[in-house]
């Protein structure tokens, strides 16, 4: 078997530790000057691709891919510092960001162009939380899919075994390559992209492309009606004694 060609699509999102603010016109989140980083679920997928290689699974190439504003380069550099071999950046401006279907269509073109036979995606991005791209891509390609993987192994006969955590146990899936896998939080522990590795990653190839290169012109299908903050949490009540608690519970209709 010639080596696997793994495609790892990643997304640049608002950092998980920042507190997002809704903008004045309630049309979105204030993104200016906010800290951005790689979507944490995508870090898991890069790490899994690198670990497959380290486990002596024959991996020919790990290709990182991102569609986003010019600054998405930074996350691609991080991906290459973690172990991806090269990357492709499709420049899409912030204002006409792609929707999951658009991303899936774009990824299909990339998979066909790069002859990938395994796509590892994060199960969802922490900004839109759509959790749709992987499934849509598998549907468009007609490939097998295993979502929210908590462990992945590949045998010599191109059989992939994926374990996923479900309610009350684990589920084991087996499928032949090519396939689409999306990662769950407990899949692995992503390594830290250290300074020397980021420096080394600067020498790796980063291709810049546009949607036109792939012959796509995605129209935005969804309309954002309004973006608002969640309601503030209401404080609890203190009760004096057991009788107080029971009467309070009765009052609230819990007893």
């Amino acid at each position, binding site marked *: 078997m010639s080596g696997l060609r793994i495609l790892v699509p990643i997304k640049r999102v608002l950092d*998980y*530790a920042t507190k997002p603010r809704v903008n004045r016109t309630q049309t979105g989140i204030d993104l200016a000057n906010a800290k951005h980083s790689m979507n944490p679920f995508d870090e898991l997928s890069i790490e899994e691709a690198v670990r497959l290689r380290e486990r002596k699974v024959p991996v020919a190439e790990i290709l990182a891919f991102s569609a986003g504003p010019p600054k998405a380069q930074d996350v691609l550099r991080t991906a290459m510092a973690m172990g991806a071999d090269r990357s492709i950046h499709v420049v899409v401006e912030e204002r006409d960001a792609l929707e999951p279907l658009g991303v899936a269509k774009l990824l299909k073109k990339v998979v066909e162009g790069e002859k990938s036979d395994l796509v590892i995606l994060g199960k969802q991005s922490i900004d839109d939380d759509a959790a749709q791209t992987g499934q849509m891509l598998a549907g468009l390609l007609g490939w097998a899919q295993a979502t929210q993987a908590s462990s992945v192994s590949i045998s010599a006969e191109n059989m992939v075994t994926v374990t996923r955590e479900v309610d009350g146990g684990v589920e084991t899936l087996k499928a032949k390559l090519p396939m689409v896998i999306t990662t769950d939080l407990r899949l692995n522990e992503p390594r830290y992209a250290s*300074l020397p590795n980021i420096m080394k990653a600067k020498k790796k190839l980063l291709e810049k492309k546009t949607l036109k290169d792939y012959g796509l012109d995605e129209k935005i299908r969804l309309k954002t009606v309004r973006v608002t903050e969640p309601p503030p949490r209401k404080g609890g009540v203190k009760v004096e004694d057991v009788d107080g608690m029971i009467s309070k519970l009765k009052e609230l209709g819990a007893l």
Partner: protein
Amino acid sequence: MASTNPALRYQVLRIYKELLFMGRDYPLGYEYYRTRLHKAFFSQRGIDDPEKIKAGIKRAEFVKKEIEALYFLKRYRTLRKRYNQS
């Protein structure tokens, strides 16, 4: 005064730079991190025994690992709280 051992001096500078770079993601802010890191290195400036310097570099490597683990755990716990509430 320059160090008597250029190889060790280079190693110390390298680990210092690496640690400084990691400070960008520190939860309490870069300034908090930088001043403390600088103080930790500055307090050891008088050491000129090569063995002691090597031990110091080892300690710095250990701290680096600890900080990496801290970042990983912080992110893991935040995400687990956000997405797996059970």
